[in-house]
């Protein structure tokens, strides 16, 4: 099992301490951990369980129920393809095909070299720009398969700063 670094332990302790005495804070705690550390591993869960005196299984049940949580770290570039209604009608399927093809990554997975994570989301709220893709927190609208390929090419060329503070 993965062991935690001293830094990770400090971060987790600080986050848990902020929520002492506030009822129902398990989800906000896990959300903040994911914001800080990029994901919530089972090792993190155990640490939280110990600190909050909740069964680790309870926390695990939360993490697996809500789609926001991930048990694995993100790739360097985080790409969310909108599959909301408007984007679906505007051809989100083809945008997804094209993204999978360009990044050689399956939707819902991270590429082997850790360069890309592809994920489906439902409506990012820019329906009139459909089809829409969020790349590292930035919205790209009115996409075509060609434009999508360009977006990926630009990411590759940039040598890119990666997903920075959009980790969530």
């Amino acid at each position, binding site marked *: 099992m993965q062991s935690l670094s001293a830094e990770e332990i400090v971060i987790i302790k600080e986050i848990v301490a902020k929520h002492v005495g506030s*009822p*129902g*804070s*398990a*989800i*906000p705690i*896990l*959300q903040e951990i994911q914001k800080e550390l990029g994901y919530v591993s089972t090792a993190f869960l155990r640490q939280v369980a110990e600190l909050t005196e909740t069964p680790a299984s*309870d926390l695990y*049940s*939360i993490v697996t*129920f*809500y*789609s*926001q*949580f991930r048990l694995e770290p993100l790739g360097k570039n985080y790409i969310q393809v909108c*599959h*909301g*209604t*408007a984007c*679906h*009608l505007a*051809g989100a399927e*083809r945008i997804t*095909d*094209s993204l999978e*093809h360009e990044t050689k990554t399956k939707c819902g997975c991270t590429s082997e070299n850790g360069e890309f994570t592809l994920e489906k*989301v*439902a*409506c*990012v*709220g*820019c*329906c*009139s*720009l*459909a089809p*829409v893709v969020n790349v590292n927190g930035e*919205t790209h*609208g009115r996409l*075509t*398969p*060609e434009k999508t390929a360009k977006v990926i090419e630009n990411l590759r060329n940039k040598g890119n700063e990666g997903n920075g503070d959009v980790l*969530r």
Partner: protein
Amino acid sequence: MYYVKVGLASCGIAAGSAAVYERFQQELTPDVTLQPTGCLGMCYCEPLVEVINSTGERYLYGNVTDKDVLRILSTHIRDGNPVTELLVDAPSTSDDDRVYFAKQSRFALQNCGVINPEDIESYFLVRGYEGLKKALLNMSSEQVIREVEQAGLRGRGGAGFPTHLKWTLTRKAAGEQKYIVCNADEGDPGAFMDRSILESDPHSVLEGMLLAGYAIGASKGYIYIRAEYPLAIKRLRTAINQARQHELLGAAVLGSNFAFDIEIREGAGAFVCGEETALLMSIEGKRGMPRFRPPYPAEKGLFGCPTSINNVETLANVPRIIDLGCEAFNRYGTEKSKGTKVFALAGKIKRGGLVEIPMGTTVNELVFSIGGGISTGKAFKAIQTGGPSGGCIPAQLGDTPVDYESLNKIGAIMGSGGLLVMDEDTCMVNLAQYFLTFAREESCGKCSFCRSGTEQMLRILNRITSGMGQLSDLDLLADLGEKIKIGSMCGLGQTVPNPVLTTLKYFRHEYVAHIQDKVCPAKQCKALIDYQVLAADCRSCGICKKSCPVGAIIGEKKQVYTIDSSKCIRCGLCVNSCKFHAIEVFSLPKEVAVCMEVQS
């Protein structure tokens, strides 16, 4: 003296309004006041810039890029001549964009795109918190509830339950501690009304919660908002802090003995958490599984205490009802459905965006007069309201008034405000399949009918769209759909068969075409379509061959290219790449099923 407002809500920012705003900041002269604002609803022509001159005349520019900024500043603001080709609304335009506003009645959205959402002073200028003051000084909590009752306000989150009844029940329920919860989960995957209100006018929702809290005797409110709305969350945080500084939240609201505070809880990505009992579970820090009602949250809600759960738009209406009186609201609408409703128009519509209409406006008025008709120029086929819980309304029922009763009568629902417009290129079977895929993934798994029933329905639909369906499947779908509705405990299971059931009702012939002829009339279902190069139009440039990811296009330069149907994966990339429109999609009656791999 000029005012310049730039729309900085998510939709505007995605279209590039942040760059426009920055450019204005750089070029600012002392006679111009620049103000960031929220969403006017005209998503179809973002970024939007509004110029208001000293006599109060408003000029609205659309599709503005940062390169247009200097032109607006020099031509309009310095020389006094509006830049006509960018104008979308102005005192002089006779353009049909004017209809867009003329047919709407802005009540819940009245401040959106008008005030600065990050500045409480800007909200004060439009009578912000006057409703709260009036209530605290002159009204008992019963009087607040009565005003809302006389206004005829019904919940805007989907079910349309009378708001005053919910508040009365919660008020009367036994218990010291009570809660008010604002449902900002907005789970319908094609809707963004609540996001826009929160991003453009957050204080109105806070004021609505304060009034609701005062009415039911709660001292604490939670806002449950989806984590996918970071800008809305940020602006809510700002608004809450400002309200605390002005003693509008805290131990003594406006110096009275009414105490109230608000906490934000971010959702974690589960559609079912929009359902009220699941939402409460989630705030309590558990898996968001709905529970049986009764007891209703009004009796036993959050942490076991009486709780009123209200939607964002419902709450945003309340301050104005209290401030201006119930007539300001109930002068709009029909006999039983009072007031206005906000809709998010999306899909194949010319003027997609947020609109607010008086209840009783017909579907046709909404689609054609306000929405400008179909964006593709093709025939209008249907609309879908209520997202995965809703149903479709075919074009021939376009005279149906949009109010709770009329929509229910034809098997559709008002829903929370998502409104999808479809043209003849939309396959209704594919649409039903899309919503059901969503429903299956989002079922919490508690009730067998919802969990396994949606899975079985989806399998049948997949079979039909891949050309393997049988006519008896249609009865099976209808039967399963009805059983899921009665066999499920919460509103999710009780409603998610609706998209299938209503498309079956109004577009049965499309299902039959998929099954009997193996044809997708809208040419969307991959297993039932083929691509071919039109020899007469092909200029033999070879671009299509390059674009094909699987090498299914055969041919050499200077020859007409052909497509190997057995290799083709129907991705459509070649159609997009061909500048001469020489590649055609077709769906003809034939035994495709045998020669194509069935899609899983």
